[in-house]
């Protein structure tokens, strides 16, 4: 190695050493950048209140297995009720008896896999002229009864069939629809993991057992000073139109006069400032 080569090599080595240490300094120079927060999964939810109708039971002394009229009544009352509810726009209606099979069949226990609430009922009395029944609207997750009422209707049956008069059942269906008031939206004013507090309560007709979904609007503050600073830094950037991201589904577990507490049964977690939409 000549003296010239050695000098060149020494210069190169020094330059490499200097750049390495300089880069090292640069890496250590700035404070560490934290990683972005864990994301919440986007959910696809049914925006309407889903209701499934179960076959009615019988509470009496007659032998259901041998009583064709009673069996017909057990089927016809839910069928007429279903027809009336499907005509209305309040609920998205599902015919429970045809959903799922075997252990996945639609029953009160696993109704939450298909719907938000189910309608079950009991035939109280069945005679040649009258048919009396009780119907209940029950939250599919908590099994808390949201509405219960009984009704006697004229039975226009012939032979072993059963044909309850639709008029009174129509009125009954409207009462069922009114049992779950339509509430537009609410804000999450406190959130701790899966429990969230909403800024609506009895004052807005919120009831225990009502269901809804949550959109990711939390952690957002429109601060004009910050907006100006962002624009000064980034310059004019294109505007984006964004849809609301659904990040959870909840049901109400406690209601006070102006607030209510809900439980997030699907989704990751709730954040302060998220928007809740009731079904």
């Amino acid at each position, binding site marked *: 190695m000549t003296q010239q080569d050695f000098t060149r090599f020494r210069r190169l080595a020094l330059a490499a050493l200097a750049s390495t240490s300089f880069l090292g300094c640069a890496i250590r120079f700035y404070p560490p950048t934290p990683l972005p927060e864990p994301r919440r999964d986007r959910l696809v939810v049914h925006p309407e209140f889903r209701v499934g109708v179960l076959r009615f039971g019988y509470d009496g002394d007659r032998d259901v297995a041998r009583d064709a009229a009673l069996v017909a009544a057990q089927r016809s009352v839910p069928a007429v009720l279903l027809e009336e509810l499907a005509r209305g726009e309040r609920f998205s209606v599902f015919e429970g008896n045809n959903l799922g099979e075997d252990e996945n069949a639609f029953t009160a226990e696993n109704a939450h896999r298909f719907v938000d609430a189910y309608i079950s009922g009991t035939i109280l009395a069945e005679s040649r002229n009258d048919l009396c029944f009780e119907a209940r609207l029950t939250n599919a997750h908590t099994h808390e009864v949201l509405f219960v009422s009984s009704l006697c209707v004229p039975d226009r049956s012939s032979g072993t069939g059963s044909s309850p008069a639709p008029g009174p059942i129509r009125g009954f269906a409207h009462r069922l629809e009114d049992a779950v008031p339509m509430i537009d939206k609410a804000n999450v004013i406190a959130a701790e993991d899966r429990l969230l507090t909403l800024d609506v309560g009895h004052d807005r007709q919120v009831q225990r057992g009502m269901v809804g979904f949550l959109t990711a609007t939390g952690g*957002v503050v429109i*601060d004009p*000073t910050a907006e100006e*600073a962002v624009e000064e830094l980034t310059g004019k950037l294109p505007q984006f139109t964004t849809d609301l991201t659904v990040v959870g589904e909840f049901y109400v577990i406690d209601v006070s006069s102006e607030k209510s507490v809900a439980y997030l049964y699907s989704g990751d977690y709730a954040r302060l400032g998220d928007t809740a939409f009731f079904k």
Partner: protein
Amino acid sequence: MMANFQKIQRSLHLHPLGLMLGATLLSGAPACRGDRGDLAILAIGAQNDPCRRMTPEGERREAKILVEHGRFYLDRAHQQRRRSGLIFASQCFRSALSITPQSYDAHLGLGITHLELAKHYSSPRLWRKDITLAKRFLGNAYRIRRGDLEPIYFLAEVAVIERKHDIAVTLLDTLVKQGAFLGPAHVLFGFICEREGRLDEASLHYEHAALAGIPERSAVYAVEHGFDITERRGAR
């Protein structure tokens, strides 16, 4: 280990279903860590398949997997302080953006990746390109979710690198007022004060950051720099 790697490689070639399967296997195969880079490139290459026919739901799922991969590389680069992971991360986020151009996660991830890349350089001549890209993608993320506090923090870091301290302070004030990103925001405040020679104020911010204590690396930085400042003040 090798068999596992080959299995993943094979499944990636069977696009587009294989991409999903390969990506899933990739995320659950710690044994072939060394080959992840190659596999990621393979996966990203498969994205450009012109025969790809995906439903919107399928595309959304694919973009989500790519964002998760981007975050994985970003996380690894963050822990090991290596530049190579950042390149893979940026490729993943860019592929996610090509499928879902309005993805907040992809814009934010890409912005953070370029911010981290910029921090590897000392001279403005070298970091200018990355900082410009970081500003663009973080700005997009801010506009996609207008008012979200998360991009505000990262934009404050960009402002600090560009030595635009007044903008950084405005952005950090917003975060501290809302109690968001408290630890890192105070660290950055401390850094600005230290740079401007206001050591007492800097020390106070580092104390606040250490008390906030999250995330861990920011807290460690705050404690170390708190000591640094005390020593320097003692030496004066």
